[in-house]
């Protein structure tokens, strides 16, 4: 069988207006002419799960820090015998990845190193994880102390009298450098336990596949997954606030939650309102450090800066409580079902295998919850503070005339920002105008045009010729990229009966319903009760809408993607990693989602969609 290939990077058309896009990113992030032969020989898949939209130049920081730090734990800390890190490039604004295998002849030598290092972590898991929380919180606290005030007109007198001998510009430069360093620091911590969580999971996964040939991936995930996770905490806080509002009879004040100040003012002055406000304030710190996106973009909105978002969710929960709906997740039933599944598989084994099952599952169940929970501390909390500080800096420089829109700093690379800062302090220091205000606005306009042009095209799912089989375990697990999936993308996969899409069977069950395609968090408010969510990818802060929908279909993501985890938690069917659901399916189409088989069928013909309004169906009887 001749293997089909994905396009080479050079074969992809550059969208009109995006010419010269390579130069808005650092040299080391784009494919190189001189390395074409080597780079074209590798298989690259697009990570649109974490980076679904085009990077503005500053935003590459998240991709660079995350993927670099993921790699270091495989290749330098833990010495994982069969996997190094993941090489990455930006092409036409999207991130492409290529896992690096360990050469066969080096694998054996890494085994004892790996066992020693990993063994230490697993033996000291609780203490090390406790320390981790302290380290991460320390980073966030220090980040909070950073600020970017306007430089003074003159050095304060006390700095003269104390003989300080510095003008304060060094502080501005240090603060910027420190902010970047602190972000880097927490991204290193991010992966300290993450790879371990995956290793423990994969160890149990491989064991299950050996003793129960062809056991569904879903079963293995269910056996190690936490049920009451911190990932769900922000959503649970909103539910509790909604219930309290109903108990206190405060429903009437949630009529216009877009007006945050009036809503909170009205609640505060109502009888019992102070009790509600106290609980609300308690929930905010830290649980509103929560983004509607995934923490990787400067445009992400965070709940604590956009309280109309959580207040809107609370209002919706209040309505559902008033209608007599149960809004809390069926935690006890989920735990009981998980325990049943564990018990029944365990009972199929005997002797040594049963003991191994207990040990490996126990380890995975200890280590795996980190995979779910770290997200709040890094992507949401750390990055929430980080982006807030970056916006503060951007606004300060905007006030200095460096650019025309308050957030335009995002169109500079992070090292270009340092240049611009030195430009600022130089102009300020010598008493002349900095150059930036005459240089950056035009350059930013040009770059904005390029980014907007790049956004008009969706990324290719992958580049170059895939290997005959995808065996790299992290790729399969984190990104849902399997041999079958790649074949599906290439159009060579098994056909779905009656036409439709195939993806990962991520959460069991079969439902039919109406599609709602969501490509941006701002569209979440359009979702109606009982619809099927179709999205490129979902984010943890979308939690509140999972109580409304019937099923989820995503373009990207594996068994352990957010959509998969949350749907299992809510008992909703999910098919993830379909590749193209959000572009193939249109809002309003009727779908049949089979989360047990991993298929999505579009039930109604295209032309039915065009017919709307009263009497629309009469033609069918003519």
């Amino acid at each position, binding site marked *: 069988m001749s293997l089909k290939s994905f396009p080479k990077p050079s074969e992809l058309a550059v969208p009109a207006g995006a010419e010269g896009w390579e130069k808005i990113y650092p040299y080391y992030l784009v494919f190189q002419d001189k390395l074409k032969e080597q780079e074209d020989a590798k298989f690259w898949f697009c990570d649109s799960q974490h980076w679904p939209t085009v990077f503005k130049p500053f935003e590459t920081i998240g991709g660079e820090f995350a993927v670099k730090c993921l790699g270091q734990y495989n290749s330098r800390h833990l010495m994982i015998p069969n996997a190094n890190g993941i090489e990455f490039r930006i092409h036409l604004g999207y991130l492409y990845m290529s896992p690096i295998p360990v050469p066969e002849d080096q694998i054996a030598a890494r085994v004892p190193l790996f066992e020693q290092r990993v063994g230490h972590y697993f033996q000291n898991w609780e203490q090390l994880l406790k320390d981790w929380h302290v380290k991460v919180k320390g980073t966030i606290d220090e980040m909070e102390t950073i600020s970017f005030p306007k430089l003074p007109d003159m050095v304060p007198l006390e700095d003269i009298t104390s003989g300080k001998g510095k003008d304060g510009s060094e502080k501005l430069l240090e603060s910027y450098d420190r902010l970047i360093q602190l972000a880097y620091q927490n991204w290193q911590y991010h992966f300290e336990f993450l790879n371990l969580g995956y290793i423990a999971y994969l160890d149990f996964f491989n064991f299950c596949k050996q003793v*129960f040939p*062809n056991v569904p991936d879903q079963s293995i995930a269910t056996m190690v997954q936490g049920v009451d996770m911190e990932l769900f905490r922000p959503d649970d806080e909103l539910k509790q606030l909604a219930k309290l509002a109903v108990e206190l009879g405060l429903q009437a004040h949630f009529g216009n939650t877009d007006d945050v100040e009036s809503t909170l003012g009205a609640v505060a002055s109502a009888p019992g309102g102070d009790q509600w406000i106290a609980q609300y304030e308690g929930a905010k710190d830290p649980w509103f450090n929560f983004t509607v996106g995934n923490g990787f973009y400067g445009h992400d909105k965070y709940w604590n800066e956009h309280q109309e978002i959580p207040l809107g969710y609370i209002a919706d929960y209040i309505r559902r409580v008033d209608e007599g709906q149960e809004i809390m997740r069926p935690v006890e039933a989920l735990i009981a079902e998980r325990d049943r599944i564990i018990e029944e598989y365990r009972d199929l084994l005997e002797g040594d295998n049963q003991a*191994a099952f207990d*040990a490996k599952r*126990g380890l995975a169940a200890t280590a795996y919850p980190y995979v779910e929970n770290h997200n709040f501390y890094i992507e949401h909390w750390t990055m929430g503070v980080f982006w807030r500080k970056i916006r503060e800096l951007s606004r300060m420089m905007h006030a200095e005339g460096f650019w025309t829109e308050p957030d335009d700093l995002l169109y500079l690379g992070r090292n270009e920002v340092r240049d611009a800062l030195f430009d600022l302090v130089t102009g300020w220091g010598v008493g002349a105008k900095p150059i930036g205000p005459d240089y950056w606005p035009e350059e930013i306009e040009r770059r904005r045009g390029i980014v907007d042009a790049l956004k008009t095209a969706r990324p290719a799912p992958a580049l170059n010729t895939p290997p005959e089989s995808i065996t790299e375990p992290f790729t399969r697990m984190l990104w849902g990229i399997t041999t079958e999936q790649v074949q599906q993308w290439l159009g060579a996969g098994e056909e779905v009966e009656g036409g439709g899409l195939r993806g990962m069977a991520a959460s069991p069950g079969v439902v039919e319903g109406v599609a709602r395609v969501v490509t941006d968090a701002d569209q979440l408010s359009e979702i109606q009760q009982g619809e099927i969510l179709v999205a490129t990818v979902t984010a943890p802060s979308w939690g509140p809408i999972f109580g409304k929908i019937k099923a989820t279909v995503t373009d990207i993501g594996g068994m352990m993607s957010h959509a998969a985890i949350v749907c299992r938690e809510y008992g909703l069917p999910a098919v993830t990693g379909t590749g193209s659901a959000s572009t193939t399916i249109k809002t309003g189409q009727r779908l049949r989602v089979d989360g047990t088989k991993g298929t999505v069928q579009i039930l109604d013909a295209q032309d039915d969609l065009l017919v709307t309004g009263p009497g629309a169906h009469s033609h069918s009887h003519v």
Partner: protein
Amino acid sequence: MQSNEYIQFFDGGIEPKLENLGGKGASLVTMTSAGMPVPPGFVVTTAQFDAFMDEAGITRHISQLLAGLDPEDTSQVDKVSAAIREDICSRPVPQAMRELTVGAYEALMNRFDAPVPVAVRSSATAEDLPDASFAGQQDTYLWLDGVKAVTEHIRQCWASLYTSRAILYRLKNNIPDEGLSMAVVVQKMVNSRVSGVAITMDPTNGDRSKITIDSSYGVGEMVVSGQVTPDNIVLDKVTLAVVNEHLGDKHAELIPDAGAKRLVEREVDDERRGRRSLTDAELTAVAQMAKRAEKHYKCPQDIEWALDADLPDGENLLLLQSRPETVHSSKPQTAPQPVVTGGFFSGFSATVPKQAV
């Protein structure tokens, strides 16, 4: 109609007792209440037999006839046997008792849109005796229509206790006739729309975490004897997710012809051949029933099942037979369950902290 002293429905919720229901009857009630529904029906209890024999005066007559009978005089034994059986088949059943049986039959028929044929089978209380020919316990009458045919055949089952062979057997083995009794099972004839087998493992490798189902249209004989290629589905035993499925050709089916009282073979059309013979819900129900059978009998099972065309969805799955799976379960577990050692992560199990387990 409720179960009572003389009539016990399979699904009547009364604890089955061997002495009331006989071996076959007790087993049918037990299976039904364990979530393994057999074709629906009821048992005419031993109490009814006892009451009829007493009230009709047959018991007394029998002891007179049997007194001093010579086992070597076969023509005399035949004569006595014929007289007793004539008594049992002709003396009137007390009205109240008869009404209960008729009522039970009507209640059974009321479960269906139209009356359906039934089978009547004897259910002896002493089936644990070494010789199976002890009583007419093999007596089975199929395709019976109407209450008259049913009551007549109940009496024939009763009468089978007094065949010449049965009388001789008791005489030769010094088994007293006192306390001799007989229950009778009245059960719907299966009208298979879809049927097949289910094994509570993967027979290709002995993997006990799977359930393997073969399914085709009509009566299961064609599946069992390999005359059709059935649909083959492998499910995960714990979550019942489909792990693998292969659609068989299913070119023909055997369908009961109630009028002709036999099975007829016919071709399956392309549309039905092209799709799976079980819906998702039916597939799950078959797997759940197989799982319950395994749990009930505490070892891997090989069951025969059918979906009955006369019963409503949700109640139409019937268990026809469950027996231990013998091919793999007799082998040691080592083949399907390799002890997993080695690999990069083998060291983990030894390093698991106590609290993690």
